[in-house]
C-alpha cells in the first residue's frame, strides 16, 4: 500500500472535512430562537474549514516530483488506510494537487454562500444552515476520498442536502426541479455503484481502496503487453464499467445532452444553493472523470475521447447559443455553465498534461466566476424580485458599484486576458488543439459565443435608457461587497499570477496525463 505524506501527524484534512458537519450537529443541538447564534456557529465552522484548507493549499508541496516522490497525495488521514466496513471497505482521505484546489474552492464558496444567506433566508433558518454545512462536508468528502466506496457514500451524501435546499427554499417550481435533479443524478450514480463493486472484486482483489483498484487495473495490461500470463478482464467489461462511471459523471457535469436538469435546478434553487451547485457540485462530475473514469480505464478513455470531445464541443456551442435566447438572468447563467463545462471537458479529454491542467484550473475559475454571477443575480433579485432581463435597463447609473463588479466578473466569464477565465480557457483549448486541431478550433469559437450572450445581457440590463425598476434600485451594501470582493480579487489574481493554483494542479496533471498515455499505449500497443 502506498504511504502518503502527512508530515504534521495532525488530522488537518479530516478536521477540514468534518468541521462543517460538526457545526451542523451543534446547531441542531442548540436551543431554538437564536438565529444569529446559529449563523455565528455556521460561519465560524465554515470559516475554520476555509482557513485550514488555505493552510493546506499553501503547504501543498508542488515539487514533490523531486523532493518526495510518494507525496502526490498529501495530508492523508489516516496515514495508512483504516478498515471501515467489512468487505474490504477502507477509510482514508487525502488530497493531490487536483483535489486540494477543489477543496479550497469548496470551503471558500461555502463560506461566502453562508455569508450571503445571512439576510437572504428568512424561513426555517436553522435547517437551512445545517443543510448547507452538511452539503459542504459531503462535497469535501467527494474530493478527498481515497476509497471508492467512501467516495460513493460522500457522492450520495452531497446529493441529499442539495435536493432539500432546492425543494424547500426554492422558487415556484421547486418540487419539479428537485425531483428532476434527484432522479437524474440517482439514475446515473446507481450504475456507478455497480461498477464500483465490480471493480473492487475484479481489480482490487476485494479491496475498495483507490490505489489497490488502480494498481489492479493497470497491472494486467502491463502483463499482457510483455507476454506475462496474468489475470485480465475482457475489454467489453471494461467498456461497460467505464460507461457506468462516465454516465454518472456526465450527468453531474452536465455534458450535453444530459444537461436539462441544470437550468431547472438553477432557476429554482435559492441563490446560495445555485452558488454551491454551479460552483462546486458540477465539479464533482469533472473531478470524477479526472480521478476515476480516465485513470482506471486509460485505453477505453482514449477510444472514447473523440465522442466526449464531440459532446463537449456541442455543449460549448449549444449552451452558449441557448443562453443567448434566455429571458431570465439566472437561466442565462445556467446555460452558460453548460457551455463553460464543455470547455472543461474539452481540456480533460484532450488527455494531455496541458489540457488536463487547463481543465482543472478552469473548474476553479468557473466556480469563482459563476459563483459570483449567481451571487450578483441573487443580490439583484433580492431588490427587484425579478430576474427578467427585459425588466431592467440603464442599471449602471443606479448601481455603479454593482455594475463595475458585474463587469469584472463578466470579463472573467468571457475569458478576457488578465482574468482567470483566460488562463483556464487558453490551456484547455491548447491541450485540445494538441489532441487534434479540429477540437481546439471548434472549442475556441466559445470565446465569440461567450462574448455574444454575455455582452447582450449586460447591455440590456445595464445600458440604455433607465427603466422604472432600475431607477428604484439601491447600490450594494458593505456586506454584499465584502462577499463579492474575495471573488473579484481571486479572478484577477489567477489571471495574473495563476501559479498559486496552477503549480499543484500542473504537478499532478502532468503525471496523470503521462500515466494515462502510458496505460493506453500499453493496452493498445505503441
Amino acid at each position, binding site marked *: 500500500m*502506498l504511504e502518503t505524506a502527512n508530515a504534521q501527524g495532525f488530522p488537518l484534512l479530516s478536521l477540514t472535512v468534518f468541521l462543517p458537519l460538526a457545526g451542523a450537529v451543534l446547531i441542531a443541538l442548540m436551543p431554538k430562537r437564536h438565529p444569529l447564534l446559529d449563523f455565528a456557529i455556521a460561519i465560524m465552522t465554515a470559516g475554520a474549514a476555509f482557513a485550514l484548507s488555505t493552510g493546506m493549499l499553501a503547504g501543498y508541496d508542488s515539487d514533490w*516530483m523531486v523532493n518526495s*516522490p*510518494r507525496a*502526490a497525495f498529501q495530508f492523508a488521514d489516516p496515514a495508512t488506510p483504516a478498515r471501515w466496513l467489512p468487505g474490504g471497505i477502507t477509510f482514508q482521505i487525502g488530497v493531490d494537487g487536483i483535489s486540494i484546489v477543489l477543496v479550497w474552492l469548496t470551503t471558500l464558496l461555502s463560506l461566502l454562500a453562508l455569508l450571503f444567506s445571512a439576510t437572504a433566508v428568512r424561513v426555517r433558518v436553522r435547517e437551512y444552515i445545517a443543510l448547507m454545512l452538511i452539503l459542504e462536508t459531503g462535497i469535501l468528502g467527494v474530493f478527498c476520498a481515497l476509497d471508492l466506496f467512501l467516495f460513493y457514500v460522500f457522492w450520495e451524501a452531497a446529493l441529499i442536502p442539495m435536493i432539500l435546499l432546492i425543494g424547500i427554499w426554492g422558487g415556484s417550481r421547486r418540487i419539479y426541479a428537485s425531483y428532476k435533479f434527484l432522479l*437524474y443524478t440517482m439514475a446515473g450514480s446507481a450504475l456507478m455503484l455497480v461498477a464500483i463493486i465490480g471493480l473492487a472484486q475484479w481489480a482490487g482483489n476485494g479491496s475498495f481502496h483507490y*490505489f*489497490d483498484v488502480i*494498481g489492479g487495473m*493497470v*497491472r494486467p495490461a*502491463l502483463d499482457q503487453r*510483455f*507476454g*506475462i500470463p496474468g489475470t485480465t478482464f475482457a475489454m467489453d467489461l471494461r467498456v461497460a464499467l467505464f460507461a457506468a462511471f462516465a454516465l454518472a459523471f456526465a450527468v453531474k457535469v452536465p455534458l450535453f*445532452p444530459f*444537461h*436539462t436538469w441544470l437550468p431547472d435546478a438553477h432557476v429554482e434553487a435559492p441563490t446560495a444553493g445555485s452558488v454551491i451547485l454551479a460552483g462546486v457540485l458540477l465539479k464533482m462530475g469533472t473531478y470524477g472523470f479526472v480521478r476515476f473514469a480516465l485513470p*482506471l480505464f486509460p485505453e477505453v478513455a482514449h477510444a472514447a475521447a473523440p465522442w466526449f470531445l464531440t459532446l463537449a464541443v456541442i455543449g460549448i456551442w449549444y449552451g452558449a*447559443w*441557448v443562453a*443567448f435566447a*434566455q429571458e431570465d438572468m439566472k437561466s442565462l447563467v445556467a446555460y452558460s455553465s453548460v457551455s463553460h463545462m464543455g470547455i472543461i471537458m474539452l481540456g480533460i479529454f484532450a488527455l494531455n*498534461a*496541458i489540457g488536463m*491542467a487547463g481543465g482543472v484550473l478552469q473548474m476553479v475559475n468557473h466556480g469563482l466566476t459563476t459563483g459570483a454571477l449567481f451571487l450578483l443575480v441573487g443580490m439583484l433579485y433580492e431588490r427587484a424580485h425579478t430576474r427578467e432581463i427585459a425588466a431592467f435597463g440603464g442599471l*449602471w*447609473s443606479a448601481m455603479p458599484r454593482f455594475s463595475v463588479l458585474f463587469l469584472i466578473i463578466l470579463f472573467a466569464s468571457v475569458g*478576457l*486576458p*488578465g482574468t482567470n477565465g483566460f488562463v483556464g480557457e487558453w*490551456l484547455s483549448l*491548447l491541450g485540445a*488543439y*494538441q489532441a487534434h*486541431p479540429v477540437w481546439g*478550433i471548434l472549442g*475556441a*469559437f466559445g470565446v*465569440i459565443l461567450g462574448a*455574444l450572450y454575455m*455582452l447582450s445581457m449586460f*447591455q440590456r440590463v445595464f*445600458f*440604455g435608457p*433607465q427603466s422604472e425598476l432600475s431607477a428604484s434600485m439601491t447600490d450594494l451594501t458593505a456586506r454584499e461587497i465584502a462577499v463579492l470582493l474575495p471573488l473579484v480579487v481571486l479572478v484577477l489574481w489567477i489571471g495574473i*499570477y*495563476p*501559479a498559486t493554483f*496552477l*503549480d499543484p494542479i*500542473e504537478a499532478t496533471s*502532468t*503525471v496523470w*496525463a*503521462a*500515466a494515462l*498515455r*502510458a496505460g493506453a499505449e*500499453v493496452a493498445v500497443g505503441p
Partner: protein
Amino acid sequence: MPTFIPLLPLVLALPLAGVVLLVLFGGRIGGRASGWLATTMVGFAFLLSLAIAFEYEGLREAPASSGTEADHALDDEGSHSVEEHGASPEWPVIERKLWRWMRVNRSLPLVVAAEPLAVGDTIDETMLDIVDVPYTDALGILDLSISVHRMWSADQALGLVARDAIEVGEVLSDMNVSAGADQIRPLGIPEAVGDFSLDVGLRLDWLSVLMLLVITGVGFLIHIYSTGYMAHDPDRRRYFTYLNLFVFSMLVLVLGSSFLTLFVGWELVGACSYLLIGFWHRSEANASAGRKAFIVNRIGDLAFLVGMMLLWTHFGSLAFGDVLPRAAELTGLAAIAAPLLLLGGATGKSAQIPLYVWLPDAMAGPTPVSALIHAATMVTAGVYMIARVHPLFDNAPGAMAAVAVVGGATALIAALIALVQVDIKRVLAYSTVSQLGYMFMAVGSGAYVAGVFHLMTHAFFKALLFLGAGSLMHAMEHGAEHAGEHPEALDGIPYEQDMRHMGGLLRRAPRTGWTFLIGGLALAGVFPLAGFWSKDEILLEVLAHGGGLYTALYAVGLLTAFLTALYTGRQLLLVLFGEPRSEAAAQAGESPLSMTVPLIVLAVLSIVGGLPVLSALGAPFPERLGDVLGHHAVEGLDKIVLALIASAAALAGLGLAWWMYGRRVPDLGLMAGRAGAASRVLWGKLYVDEAYHILFVAPFVRIARVLWKFVDNGLVDGAVNGVGRSLLAAGQWSRRWQGGRVRGYGLSILLGAALMVAWLFVAAP
C-alpha cells in the same frame, strides 16, 4: 550604465497605478482631480519613455562585436540581451522576464541505461546516462512503466507509474534484473525539473521604443485635451480610469515579449475600446456600437488564438525570441496558415475587410477616444503585430500577398465611402480605415519600415484631425448656446457633427481651424507635411516589390491617394471655408487652451514628423527601425518622378474638391446619398452591415430561439421527461395487478400453478 531601461516596467506601472488609484480614491478626489491624476501618470510614463529611448540610442554597438557591454549592463534581475537577426543588428534586443505566467509542461531528466540490458544483468553506475525526457513523452513513460513493473510489487500503485519510477534510482545500485521480459532499461532519479513555460516578459527594441513614444506621447496629449473636453461630464472619473487602463493595455501590447503577452494587450485594448465606445451608455446606440466592436474584434481574436495554438504546437514556445528566428522551419500548410490566422486577428483589430464594420460605429465614443484608440494607437496594433512577427510573413509570400490585397481593397473602398459622408467624425473614421489599408499594403509588400513609418505619421495627423473635430464640435455647441437655438438634426446626425451645418469655422476658431487645416493637408499627402513622406515611401515600396499584383496595387494606392485628397479637401472646404451655414457655426467660439495646446503640438509633429532630416537628429527613422525590421534598399526606380506622380495625384484630388465644393456654395441637397445611384450605394456603406445582418446576425438570433424553445425544451428535455412519463405509465399499468384483492392473487396463483403443471406434462416426456 543604463539607469532608465531597467525601469521599463515602471512605464507600465504608472498608468496601472492610475487605474488603481482612481478606482479606490477617485470618488473622494472628484472628477477634476481624477483627470489630472490620470494625465500626470501618463505624462510621467511619457517622460520615462523618452529617457529610455535616449538611453537605448546610446546602446549602439559596432556591428561585429555583439553586445557584451549591454549584457553586463543589464545583468541584474534576469535581463539579458538576445541576438536574433542574421544581419547583425546594431542595437541589442533587450528582453526581461517578469514572472512565470503558466507552467504548462515539465520535462524530467532521467537516468537510463546507456544500452538496453539483458535479463539478469547487474547494473552499475557506468552503464547509465542522463537524458531529458519530456514528461509526456510516450516512449519515455513506456520505459518507466516497464521498469516500475519489474521493480515494484503489485501493491505499488502502478497507475502512478511515472511518479514511482523516480524511486527506481534509489535502489539502482543493488538492483538485479531478473524478471521475464527480454529487455529492460532502468530509469532513475531526476536531477532537476525543467519546464516549458509561458512567461510574462517585456522586449525592448527600436520597434517597441517607437511605439512606446507614440503611445505615451500621443496618449499624454490626448489626456490633456480630455481634461478640457470632458470638463463638464459628471462621469469624468470613470472616463479617465478607462483611458489610463487603455494606455496600460496598449503598452502591454507593444512591449510584450511573446505572442501571448501581446495577445493580453490585444484583448485588453479591445475591452477598453468596448467600454469607451459605450461610455455614454444611456444611449442604446452607443452601447450597441461598443458591443459590435468587441464582438467583431473577438472574431479576429479567435483567428489569432488559433494561430498561437498552431505556433505553440510547432515551436513549443510563444516567445518572439524563440519563434521568430526559427520561422523558416514552418513548412507546408502551417507556413501559410500561421500568418493567415494572424492576419485574421489583424483585420479585426485594425478594421480591415471583412471585419472593418465596427470602426465607423465606434465614433459613438467621446471624440478624444476616437483620436487615441480608433485612430492613433489601438487600430494600428494589427500593423504593429505584422511588423513584429514579420519573419513568419517573409516565410510565406502567399500570406504577404493576402495582406497587401486586403490592405489595398480596404484602402480603396473605405476612401470611396468617405467621399459621401457628411458627419465630420465619420469621414475621419472611414479615412482611418482607408489609411490602415495603406499600412497593410505596405507591410504586405515587405515594406515594414514604411508601414510603421506611416503608422507614426498617421498617429500624429489623424489624432490631430479627430481632436480638431472634437474642438470644432465644441465650438459648434458653444455657438448654438450663444445663438439660443440648435440646428435640427438631419439624417439622424447630431447637428454639431454635421458638416452641412458648418462652414467658415477657420475664422471663428482660428487655432483649431489652422491646426485642422494642417492635419488635413498632411492626410492628403501635401509636400512637405508628414503624410507626404510616409505615403510616398509606401507607394515606392509597393511598386518596387515588382510583379503584376503589386503593380496593380500601386495603381490602387495612387487612386486612393487621389480619393484621400478629394474627401479631405471636401471636408476642409465644408468645415473651415465658405460662409457659415447655421447660426451655431456663425457664433461658434474657440475652445480652451487645454484643448488647443495639444492641437498645436500635434500640428507641429504633423509638419515635421516625416522630414528625412529628423533621422539625422536621432529620431528613430528609418535605419533604426530597419535594425529590427530589416533594411530595405529600393533601387532602379526614380524616386523623384514617383514622388512627383504621388504629389500630382494629391493635388488633383484637392483641386477637384475645390472645383466641386470651394468654387461655389455647395449644394447641400445633393449630399448624404442624394446625388444619384452611386452616391446612394456609398452612403449606404455598400450595404455591408445589412448583408452581415441578414447573413449572420438574424439567423443567429432566430436559431437561438429555436434551439431554446424547440430543441432544448422540446426535444432534449422532452426526451428526458418522456422517459419519466413512460416509466410512470408503466407503473400505472402494473399497479392494477397489485390491487390488494386476495381473490385476484389467488386466481393468479392457481393459474400459474396450472400452467406449470401443464408445462410439466408437455415438457417432461
